[in-house]
C-alpha cells in the first residue's frame, strides 16, 4: 500500500484523500439532506399548499395561508404571548444568572454545593417538574398561596386565570433556565484575567461597582451576547410547560407559537397552514441568529 502511494503522482494522492474524505462524510451528508434540508424545503413548499393529512391531494394556494395567518386571532395571540413570555424570561433569567454566578465566584465556601443546587433544574425532567410547579401554584392547596395566606394575602389562581397564567409559566421558565445561564457566566468569569482586576484596583476602582463596570461587564460581553441569544431562542421555543399544564388556556391566554403549530399541524392535521406558521417561526430564529452574528458580535469582540 505504502509503496503504491509512493509511486502515485501528487495529483492522484490528493484525489485519493478527497475520495476518502467523501466516504467518511457521506453518511452525515446523506442524513443531513434527508432529515434537515429536505424537510426544511418541504415545510416552505407545504406552506404554500392546502395540504391536510387524511385527505389525498393538495393544491398550491400561493400566499393564502400567510394571508390567513395575519387575520388569525389565535396566531396573533400566540405571537404576542410568546413575545411577552420571552420578554420576561430572558432578561430576568440572565440578570439572576449573572448575579448568582458572581456571588458564587466570590464565595469561598460551598461553591460546588451552590453550583449544583442552581444547576439541578437543568438536569431535571421539565415535564415532571412542571407538574410539581402546578402543585406549588395550586390556588387552594398549593404551598405558594398557603404561604401568602399566612400573611392574610389571597394569592391568585396562578395557572388558572388568564391574567396570571403567563407569569406563572414565566416563573417556571426562569427557574429552569437560570442554572444553564449561570454555568456559562461562571465559565466567562473564570476566563477574565486576574491582572485586569489588579490593574483596576491600582487605577483607582475602589468600589465593587467600579470594578464591575471597568472589567467584569465588558469582559463578559461575548458570554452575555451568547447567553442572550440562547435564552431568547429557548424562550421562543417554549412548549413543554404549556402542553403539560395549560394546553394554551385558559381562554388562549397561554397560547404560544410552538403550541399553536402543534395544535394546527398534529391535532387538526392542517399541515399546509401549520407549515406556514413554521416558516414564520423559522424566520424569527433566522433574524435572531443574524442579529447575533452580524450586528452585535462586532461590539463585544475587541480584537
Amino acid at each position, binding site marked *: 500500500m505504502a509503496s503504491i502511494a509512493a509511486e502515485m503522482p501528487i495529483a492522484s494522492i490528493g484525489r485519493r484523500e478527497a475520495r476518502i474524505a467523501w466516504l467518511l462524510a457521506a453518511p452525515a451528508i446523506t442524513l443531513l439532506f434527508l432529515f434537515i434540508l429536505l424537510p426544511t424545503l418541504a415545510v416552505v413548499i407545504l406552506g404554500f399548499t392546502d395540504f391536510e393529512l387524511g385527505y389525498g391531494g393538495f393544491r398550491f394556494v400561493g400566499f393564502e395561508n400567510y394571508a390567513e395567518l395575519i387575520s388569525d386571532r389565535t396566531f396573533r395571540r400566540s405571537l404576542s404571548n410568546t413575545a411577552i413570555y420571552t420578554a420576561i424570561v430572558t432578561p430576568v433569567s440572565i440578570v439572576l444568572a449573572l448575579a448568582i454566578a458572581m456571588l458564587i465566584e466570590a464565595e469561598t465556601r460551598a461553591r460546588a454545593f451552590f453550583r449544583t443546587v442552581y444547576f439541578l433544574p437543568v438536569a431535571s425532567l421539565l415535564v415532571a417538574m412542571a407538574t410539581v410547579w402546578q402543585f406549588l401554584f395550586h390556588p387552594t392547596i398549593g404551598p405558594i398561596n398557603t404561604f401568602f395566606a399566612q400573611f392574610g394575602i389571597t394569592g391568585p389562581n396562578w395557572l388558572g386565570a388568564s391574567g396570571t397564567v403567563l407569569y406563572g409559566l414565566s416563573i417556571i421558565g426562569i427557574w429552569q433556565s437560570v442554572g444553564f445561564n449561570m454555568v456559562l457566566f461562571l465559565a466567562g468569569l473564570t476566563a477574565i484575567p486576574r491582572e485586569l482586576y489588579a490593574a483596576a*484596583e*491600582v487605577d*483607582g476602582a475602589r468600589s465593587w461597582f467600579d470594578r464591575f463596570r471597568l472589567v467584569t461587564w465588558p469582559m463578559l460581553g461575548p458570554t452575555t451576547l451568547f447567553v442572550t441569544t440562547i435564552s431568547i431562542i429557548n424562550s421562543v421555543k417554549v412548549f413543554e410547560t404549556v402542553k403539560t399544564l395549560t394546553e394554551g388556556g385558559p381562554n388562549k391566554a397561554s397560547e404560544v407559537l410552538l403550541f399553536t403549530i402543534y395544535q394546527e399541524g398534529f391535532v387538526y392535521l392542517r399541515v399546509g397552514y401549520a407549515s406556514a406558521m413554521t416558516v414564520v417561526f423559522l424566520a424569527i430564529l433566522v433574524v435572531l441568529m443574524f442579529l447575533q452574528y452580524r450586528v452585535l458580535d462586532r461590539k463585544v469582540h*475587541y*480584537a
Partner: protein
Amino acid sequence: MSVLSLDNITKSFAGNAILNGVSLEAGQGEFIALVGPSGCGKSTLLRIVAGLDHADSGEIAIGGRNVSSLAAADRNIAMVFQSYALYPHLTAGQNIAVPLAMRRLTAAQRLPFIGDFLPGQRQIRADIQRQVREMAASLKIDHLLDRKPGQMSGGQRQRVALARAMVRRPSVFLMDEPLSNLDANLRVHARGEIVELHRRAGVPTLYVTHDQSEALSMADRVAVMIGGTLLQLAPPQEIYDDPAHIEVARFLGQPRINVLETRMDATGLVRFGALTLAVETAPPSERRVLIGVRPEFVRLRPGTDGILRARIERTEFLGSEVIIHARLDAIGETIVARIAPADAATLSTGMPVSVEIEPSRMMLFATTGERLRAKTVAIASSRERAHG
C-alpha cells in the same frame, strides 16, 4: 531620605512561608530590581506593596506615611503588569485616561449618560484628555490613541501600559516583569527606554524580574530574593563581585559560578591548589567550606606541571568567548572556565591542562551559604612546588 520603606514583611499561604521578614528602603528616584528564581516571593512582595495582597505582619510606608491598611486605590502607586493588563474594550487613549478619571471624577460623574449632564465634568474631562495627549506624545504613541489593545503589537501595548502608569504622577512605580512578553531584540531596546522614563519621573521604582541581565543593567541597586528571604541588596557591581551568600553568587553570572567543596584545618586555614587562605571568623565546629570562583577567573594552560590538574571534557565556542568544561583530576568535580578565543586556540577536548585561579577572586562560603571573609596568607608558585 527613603520614600518607600518596607519593614519586616511576612506572608504565608496555607502554612507555607512565602516571605520571611523582608525589609527594604528605596530613596527618591531610586531604581531597585527585585530579582530571583520563580517562586521566590518577589511578585507577592510587589503585590503587597501595591495593596493587592495583604501581609501577615510588617509595615509599608510611602513618603513616611504608613499605608499598610490602605486599599490599592488609595496608595497612589502605579503598576505595570507582566501581561500589561490593558482593558481590551477601551482604546489606548481611554486606557491611559482610566486612572485619571477614577480619581478626579466622582462616581456619579462617571455614570454613562447621566454623568454627561452633571456640572463640572466637562472641564475635568477636557483636562484629562489634554494630559493623556501629552503623555502619549512624550512616549511617541500619539498615533495609537484610537486603537484598541487587540490591534497593537506587543511593544506598542507595553508603551500604552507605561503611559497609563505614568500619567497619574504616582509616588511609587511598580513593575512586574514588564519586558518578559517582548521578543529578545525589543527587550534590550525597551530596557533603555524604561530607565530613561524612570529618570524623568524621578520616583522610586521596584522592578521585578527573573532575568539577571535586566536587573544588573537597569537598576541602581539589585535585591536578590531566594525562597522568600531577601539575601542581599546592593549596587550591581558590588552584588556581582562581592556576594554575601552562595545563592546570590549562584543566581547572578552566566555561566554559573564554580563551587568546590574543601576542608578547613583547625586553625582556620584553607588550602586549595597553590593557595592558602585564612578565614577571619571561622565557624566553630564545621570543617567543610565552599569555594566559589567565577568562570572568568579560571585560567587553563596546556601541560601537567601545575598543582591543580584537569582534563578538558567539552568546549563551547560562543563567538566572543569560549566556555570550557574541565574535570579536576584530584576531586573529580567539573570546573568551568570562560576564556578569550585567542587563549583557547591551544586547547582541545581530552587535553590535560593545569588550572590556575586568580587568588583575589576566590570566595569562601560556609556550607549554610553565608560568605566567610578570608585573606590570602600564602601563594606557592606552581613551578616551585612541582620541583620541590
